[in-house]
């Protein structure tokens, strides 16, 4: 962990205009996540944690306030500029893995490099390297249907890491996994964090959240608690 802010959110609100009613999903959120931190965001459904995650993932823009990612203000960028930011600075891990079903593990991992314009040979080499990192060096040519849930999530993690992002964003990464596989994935996250990765993870599972070093709790669109986890 160092002092450089990976994520700096200041006075962010998000209001959805549904015509008749306006829904305030976020009502003024301010926090900073430094590079190398491992943070869990928790909250009941409807608390605004998904909205917060979408904002942090540059999939959406705040109504008010500023969001600086890795030093750049991204609160008002166009869709295509946001896509470029996601490509370069963010790695996504989803509950449902979201792998391309008909595509090999290697090609799945190489996908972000495809959009970055990396030549095929180089992107395959980088993807292979990344798959070895997550312990799937011998499964590169397998399709997702030929892999276990844990292995699929490892492929997804390799895909998230292949473009060397500033921040890894995980949305309920163990939601579809049994407890033993969840432990394996959490061990991998811990290992990545020890290697210096900034990880932000949304979860409603206290046990999973306990793996993080800091937990931000959200309720009714506001941060209600923000502290380091005990016992780590």
């Amino acid at each position, binding site marked *: 962990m160092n002092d450089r802010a990976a994520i700096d959110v200041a006075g962010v609100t998000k209001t959805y205009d549904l015509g008749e009613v306006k829904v305030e999903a976020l009502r003024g959120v301010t926090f900073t996540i430094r590079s190398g931190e491992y943070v869990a965001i928790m909250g009941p459904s409807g608390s605004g944690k998904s909205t917060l995650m979408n904002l942090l993932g540059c999939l959406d823009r705040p109504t008010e306030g500023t969001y600086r990612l890795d030093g750049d203000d991204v609160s008002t960028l166009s869709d295509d500029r946001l896509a*470029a930011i996601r490509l370069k600075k963010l790695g996504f891990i989803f509950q449902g893995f*979201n792998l391309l079903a008909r595509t090999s593990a290697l090609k799945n991992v190489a996908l972000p490099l495809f959009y970055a314009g990396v030549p095929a040979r180089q992107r395959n080499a980088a993807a292979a390297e990344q798959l070895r990192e997550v312990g799937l060096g011998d499964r590169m040519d397998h399709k997702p249907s030929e892999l276990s849930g844990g292995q699929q999530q490892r492929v997804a993690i390799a895909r998230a890491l292949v473009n060397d992002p500033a921040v890894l964003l995980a949305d309920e990464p163990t939601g579809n996994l049994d407890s033993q596989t969840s432990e394996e994935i959490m061990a991998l996250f811990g290992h990545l964090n020890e290697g210096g990765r900034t990880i932000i993870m949304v979860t409603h599972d206290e046990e999973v959240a306990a793996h993080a070093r800091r937990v931000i709790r959200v309720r009714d669109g506001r941060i209600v608690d923000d502290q380091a986890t005990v016992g780590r």
Partner: protein
Amino acid sequence: MSFFSYVAEALSVLGANRVRSILTVLGLIIGVTAVIAIQILGAGMSGAVSGILGQLSDRTFFVVPNQRQADFTRAAIKLDDLKRLRFGVPNVVDAVPGGATVRDARFGHVHRKLGIGAQADERFATSTPIRWGRKIDIDDIAEARHVCVISGEAADKLQITDNPVGGALRVGDRRYTIVGVLAKSKAGILPSLSNLEVSIPYTTYENEYARGRAIIAMRVLLDDTSKLAQTESDTLVWLAKLKHGRAEYQTFDRKSFSQAVDGIFAGVTLVVGLIGAVSLLVAGIGILNIMLVSVAERTREIGLRKAIGATRLQVLLQFFIEALVLSAFGCLVGLVLGVGIGAAVNQIAIVQLSGVVAPIPWLRSIAIATGFATLVTLAFGTYPAWRAATLDPIEALRYE
């Protein structure tokens, strides 16, 4: 990222849904096949007809009574009048009666029914080369000799294998000395229609078969071919004066024959074009439909691609190129099938019939296939691709 990466991606997607992809482009395949095959046949027919017409001399034209007039027989004229045409109309060198009849002919022991026709000298004859002997000449005509020239096809019918020049062809109780045999008109059947089976001097024909009967059809030989149109209209004026306006005639020359034929083919081309447009529309809607299904099915995939950084243009290109690959595949198959079927039918039907081998219009066929693929993709591939490109990634990732 290269175009080929997108094509490879599209191929893997379409390959995964092989049956669906093939069924989708079936309409396009049928449409392109039909249009290309028909236009190859059209080119073959057109080539065959102009090949036959090409054997007609540019220096002659035909005059026949206008079919629409009430009393056809009024249009008949006498041989003496016909002979005066060359003094009455500038640029006319000669005018001869046309006429043909079917008679029993015998060569040796072989009897056949053959068409016997009035022939003028070589200036009026078709360009069919001679195999043995010579063609009818001016002396034959002047003296109304009993001589004949046999076409290559008629020679076959009469089982002539060796040079028969000097021999006799008997028609009824008349004996005609064979002075020449024409070469066979390539392999076909149609060119023989432009040659009489048995040609005899028109003077002889008048004496033997048209005696007392008036001349209906005639052929006119002119000097300067560049004044063809003027000479034709002068001839019509001269004939009208001769008949005191009580009969109408019309003229035909090689050009007006080919114009008539070209007119027919223009009509055929228009119909084929309309069929093509309809099949294009139907095929395009099929592709539009399947692409929309594909976009809907892959909403989550699109969400994921956008989440990991694909721009709208990149997603648009992916689906657009998928539609392009689909229609390009259909048009390629249609091109191959269309050229194959077109060339085969052309070979079986038209070449056999006419002996004229028209070259396959490859360039036009490829242009049709490419045009179809481009049009279908642009018209029906753009909207689904745009739908995919403008999906909201958050919504798309949530899509079940």
